[in-house]
């Protein structure tokens, strides 16, 4: 059982670089296996912007700027191989595009997947992580969640849509998980009415759903490529829930522990790629909180009827820092350098941070 270190022994969040931008930044991602990062956003004239920066000295240098017709909301490298490193983006018009950044004029794959803005995108099966086919999932304001395979044109391989006649709710976030072998896949989706739904792609069914009483801003599994272990869901009103996904009870679902951070929305949660029990949440007041999850002594126990029930652990705050007055809407850890992360806020600033002392956590 590790205890939380105190004072200056704690991990420090050091702001390394701050780069002001001239457009609204919606998403920022590290390019795998490099010191480059990608910024996706919307320029003032209503077009989409992709900028490629490289970390050099104490600054970021702009390497490439690409303009697209529609503003871009989200992007991922999750479904592409390490050699190709194609970027999959979702834009304000509901188009899913996969770009080769060396030749970005024409997308490698393009489909008008949704009728409204694609709020969130995730990819699995690429980058040498996990097994199985590369797939991309998109969640949109039209209430549907669709899974795409870049080898299949126009038709999604899975479509989670509301029943006929049901009024739609905004899907705000999606995440892949449980991709530990070629057949197993799970998609988790969070909606604005507080619903979290877990879809099993192997059996093509709804595996679990719950409602956390506040709109769900971000969900993430701690690792996409293992047997699903933990899921963190963040929401409006400053709350987040950590679900223990190893044991599913037939009626009660998954055990969870929740924390309330502050009054403002928690926009993003991201797990540290090098340590799956450490994650960072970004808040609407421009703050970042670094958390550590501690497992309970026993992860599951039997309830009165003999069914297995999960036991949630506890979450402790390692460090927090306030960087901006505007919400920090996007966050990404570098998969190559432990502790290096980039965040983008609505004050049109890109910040690169270094989190120290993560080895001792």
């Amino acid at each position, binding site marked *: 059982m590790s205890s939380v270190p105190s004072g*200056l022994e704690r991990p*420090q969040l*050091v702001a*390394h670089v701050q780069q002001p931008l001239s457009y609204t930044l919606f998403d920022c991602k590290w390019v795998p*296996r*490099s*010191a480059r990062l990608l910024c996706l956003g919307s320029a003032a004239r209503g077009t989409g912007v992709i900028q490629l920066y490289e*970390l050099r*000295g*104490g600054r970021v240098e702009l390497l490439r700027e690409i303009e697209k017709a529609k503003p871009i909301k989200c992007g991922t490298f999750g479904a592409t*191989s*390490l*050699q190709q490193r194609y970027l999959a983006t979702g834009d304000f018009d509901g188009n899913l595009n996969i770009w080769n950044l*060396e030749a970005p004029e024409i997308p490698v794959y393009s489909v008008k997947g949704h009728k409204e803005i694609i709020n969130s995108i995730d990819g699995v099966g690429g980058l*040498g992580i996990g097994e*199985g*086919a*590369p*797939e991309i999932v998109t969640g949109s304001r039209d*209430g549907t969640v669709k*899974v795409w395979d870049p*080898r*299949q044109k126009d*038709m999604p*391989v*899975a*479509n*989670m*849509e*509301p*029943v006929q006649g*049901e*009024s*739609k*709710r*905004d899907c705000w976030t999606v995440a892949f998980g449980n991709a530990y072998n*070629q057949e197993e896949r799970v998609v988790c989706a969070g*909606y*604005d*009415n*507080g*619903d979290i*739904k877990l*879809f099993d*792609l192997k059996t*093509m*069914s*709804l595996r679990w759903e719950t*409602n956390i*009483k*506040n*709109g769900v801003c971000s969900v993430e599994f701690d690792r996409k490529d293992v047997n699903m272990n933990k899921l963190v869901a963040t929401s*409006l*009103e400053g709350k987040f829930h950590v679900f223990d996904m190893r044991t599913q009870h037939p009626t009660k679902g998954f055990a969870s522990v929740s924390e309330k951070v502050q009054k403002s929305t928690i926009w993003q949660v991201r797990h540290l790629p090098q340590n799956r029990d450490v994650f960072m949440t970004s808040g609407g007041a421009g703050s970042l909180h670094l958390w550590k999850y501690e497992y309970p002594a026993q992860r599951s126990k039997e309830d009165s009827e003999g069914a297995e029930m999960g036991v949630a652990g506890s979450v402790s705050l390692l460090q927090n820092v306030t960087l901006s007055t505007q919400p920090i809407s996007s966050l990404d850890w570098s998969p*190559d*350098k432990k*502790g*290096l992360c980039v965040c983008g806020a609505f004050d049109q600033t890109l910040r690169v941070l*270094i989190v*120290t002392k993560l080895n001792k956590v």
Partner: protein
Amino acid sequence: MPVWLREYSWRQTGSAVYLSLPLRGVRVTPANIFCTDQYLKVSIPPFLFEAILYAPIDETNSTAKIGNGIIFFTLYKKEEAMWDSLTIENDNKEKLQYLRENAVLKAHEKAKEETEAKKVTKQEHKKYALEATMKLEEAERKRIENLKEKERQKVTKELELWKKQQEDAEKQKRIQKGRELHQEVEQLKERKKEKMNKTRICNEGTSETRLKPTKGCHGSYSMFSENLKEEQLPAPRSAATIKINFTSRVFPTALRESRAAEEEEWLRKQAEARRTVSADLSELEDLKEEEKNPDWLKDKGNKMFAMGNYLAAVNAYNLAVQLNNKLPLLYLNRAACHLKLRNLHKAIEDSSKALELLTPPVPDNENARVKAYVRRGTAFCQLELYTEG
């Protein structure tokens, strides 16, 4: 009438006067003794002793020793001289009085000055203390800043090192790749076998060293590895749809816990409003079935308003209100009509009624509330009650 103490004895030197005053049976405290530079008084009710001194004394240095039943005064003279007597012989009551008052005044002033001086010193002490604490805090802050700065620099250096490592590894790999490519081109049969090995080695290699492949060198290499990978990847999933239901929510906005209670209330009010129909008007029997429906009347009113027939619209709304006085929209629309008709006071009344009904404020009825405020404001402005507007 006080009892005058006349028994006293005194003797003097050139610079001082020693006065002893016997007091039997009374307790003396310093508060009973009052002394200025030419007036001495000891007052212990009912006993009283006073003396208007022959010459001024230095009363700050003079002392009074309170002993057992006796007070011993040591008074230092301001001027070295021998006094003829202790007190000034003066029967003039007025003069006495005047001297007494003077003495008291002088004492007061002295006291005042003392307090002033004390205050000033206190202030200075406070200031000093404040400055000292500020300095300490500043020092502490600087120390933390320095630590943070050092941390930052260390981390920056590490980053640079890592980047350099990357670049070096990249260069090495590039050279290696070039060599390997040549080998492949020459030997065809062995290629497949080698490739298999190489993919495994190189894949492992890529995961160990940080590598950014360049397109040129990698063209053929990646193609081959891609083919292999294709064989290992499963086919795309067969398309399927999962139908889902959502937890029901009336409002189009996102769910927030803090707003949930208010939204509940609003919904309840709406439900009530729909149901209440304030009937029992004899005129109702004349009306057709249609005309009893407040919604239908509201629509009629809207149509009239659109056509410009404001009076008719008002009539329609009036009837609707008679039937159901809880629908805020009716009041809102009627307010608009009154505005057009320049019945400004009525417009204000109706907008206010509408606003009352539109509590609690939720985003759902925001539009309606905005309209209500705007109409009320316009009416006030037209009445030239600009402040109210």
